[in-house]
């Protein structure tokens, strides 16, 4: 008779879509210190995905890393809105010509509200653990679409409106990270930023770190995150 699984290694990463790049990197490298699990109940993922608590039952890590949400900035700004918008977010003080200025504090408010759903799920997961808990920021934004980039076919009708310019997406990502940092800190949880070496000099995700889907990192990105975590968590 076998009891519940016991996981004694260093870091358990639980979350949603962004955990997949980490899981692939862990598998490829044969990492023993990390486990990454997409905890969404797959059958209900399309409706927001309830948590499959069985998927991490029995794990007793030294550190828990939460990777929930992290796509809220793309909901607001991946696809162009009508009218097209921009906002000020220091040090990015200019807005693109012809775009409507939206007050920054409105963007902050919208993203802070949107991240609550992921935060709530993260807190439900956190309650199951007694170890130190951290949260992971989403990957940096992509710079531009190219011939290799592709969104799911369901995006076809929306994509006609165009993809928001990189400068706007960069600012949205910065605001989201700030809002996540603030929200998690209220629960005593530190947000770990994306690795600096995953970004180009302007803060965009290096082209080699994403494939067709520009909103998630690939396994190579996952590898960089794991290295980053080893330093941050002193693993």
């Amino acid at each position: 008779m076998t009891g519940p699984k016991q996981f004694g290694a260093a870091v358990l990463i639980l979350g949603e879509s962004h955990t997949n790049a980490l899981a692939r990197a862990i598998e490829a490298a044969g990492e023993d210190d990390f486990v990454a699990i997409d905890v969404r109940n797959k059958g209900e993922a399309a409706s927001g995905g309830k948590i499959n608590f069985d998927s991490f039952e029995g794990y007793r890590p030294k550190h828990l890393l939460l990777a929930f949400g992290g796509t809220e900035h793309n909901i607001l700004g991946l696809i162009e809105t009508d009218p097209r918008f921009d906002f000020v977010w220091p040090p990015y003080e200019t807005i693109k010509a012809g775009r409507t200025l939206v007050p920054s504090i409105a963007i902050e408010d919208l993203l802070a509200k949107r991240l609550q759903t992921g935060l709530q799920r993260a807190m439900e997961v956190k309650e199951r653990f007694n170890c130190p808990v951290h949260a992971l920021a989403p990957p940096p934004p992509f710079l531009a679409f190219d011939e290799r980039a592709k969104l799911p076919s369901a995006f076809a009708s929306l994509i006609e409106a165009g993809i928001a310019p990189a400068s706007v997406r960069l600012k949205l990502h910065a605001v989201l990270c700030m809002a996540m940092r603030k929200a998690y800190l209220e629960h005593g949880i530190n947000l770990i930023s994306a690795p600096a070496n995953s970004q180009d000099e302007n803060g965009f995700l290096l082209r080699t770190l994403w494939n067709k889907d520009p909103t998630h990192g690939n396994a190579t990105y996952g590898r960089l995150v794991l290295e980053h975590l080893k330093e941050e968590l002193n693993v």
Partner: protein
Amino acid sequence: MSKRHPYVGRPDYQFWRKEPALEDIALFDPVGKPSFRIQMSDKVVTAGSCFAQHVARFLAQAGFNFLVTEQPHPLLTDELASRMNYGLFSARYGNVYSARQLRQLLQRAYGEFEPLDAAWETQGGRWVDPFRPQILPGGYVSEQEVVLDREIHLAAVRNAIEQMSVFVFTLGLTEIWSDNRDGAVFPLAPGVAGGRYDEDRYSFHNLTLPEVVEDLQWSLDFIRARNPDVKVIVTVSPVPLNATAEDRHVALSTAYSKAILRIAAEQVTAQNEMCDYYPSYEIITSPFTCSEYFEADRREIAPKGVKHVMGLFLKHYSEIEQAQQSVHTRTEQNPVARQRVRDAEALMQVLCDEEAINNT
């Protein structure tokens, strides 16, 4: 045969003891004969002190074509747009308490005045627009954002001025705070909602009757130079001063301020065509209404008071018998744009699901 005295034959409303409100305050109607009516298609713009917010809200809800030229982006929810004061007035100028403030708003909108104070920092490290310091709760993230948003705002003011058919302005205060260097007038004293009070830079002034008359007349002339057919309604806020900078009781300053404003309104409306005084002040403060229209703090106006004021406004100025319920939402949104955001949300979920399947 001549009359026994000159009051013989005069209408009942000229006599205190014949006022029907002595029996029922709801019957109090001091409005008189308007010089024009407001068509439902007329674009109405409102500005003024805090009482003007009631006017704006009521006009919008009554089905008037309340013109809002500074609209929120469809990303903003109705609640968020409201919190950020979109639709509170026709443009986001916030409360325009004094005739001097109105005059300078017009000058700033048309590039005739650029005040030295461009942005004030708050204690929290954010920034506010000195000329509408409470328009964006939480503040702007930088001086540059203040400047950029003000450009949009002033363009919206110009649009409102040039498109409107009717302008309703509510005079609120005579007490002003201004910059000694260029005379720029602020709605709130520096330091109250941003900025830093510096006695050498800023000073208090209580506007006199000639100053209020001149500022108001100048503003009307300026507006009609750009929109000659606009009809104007001037009112005086019945809301007492919250505080006075004069070294005297706030009740005395309130009486002074309202007296000046009331006379200024009388003089200016008398000397301009298609320009009426509307007696909001009297409806709320007259002994006929027994102070029943004030809230418990004796300052804020109770909803039933606002309803009385605006009910008479509809009766005398509108083309309809009663308020219509076809509310022109003050934040007319682009439903297509909002739907696009919802679609993006749903599809982002798809994208995240697919990520679990294929991103290697």
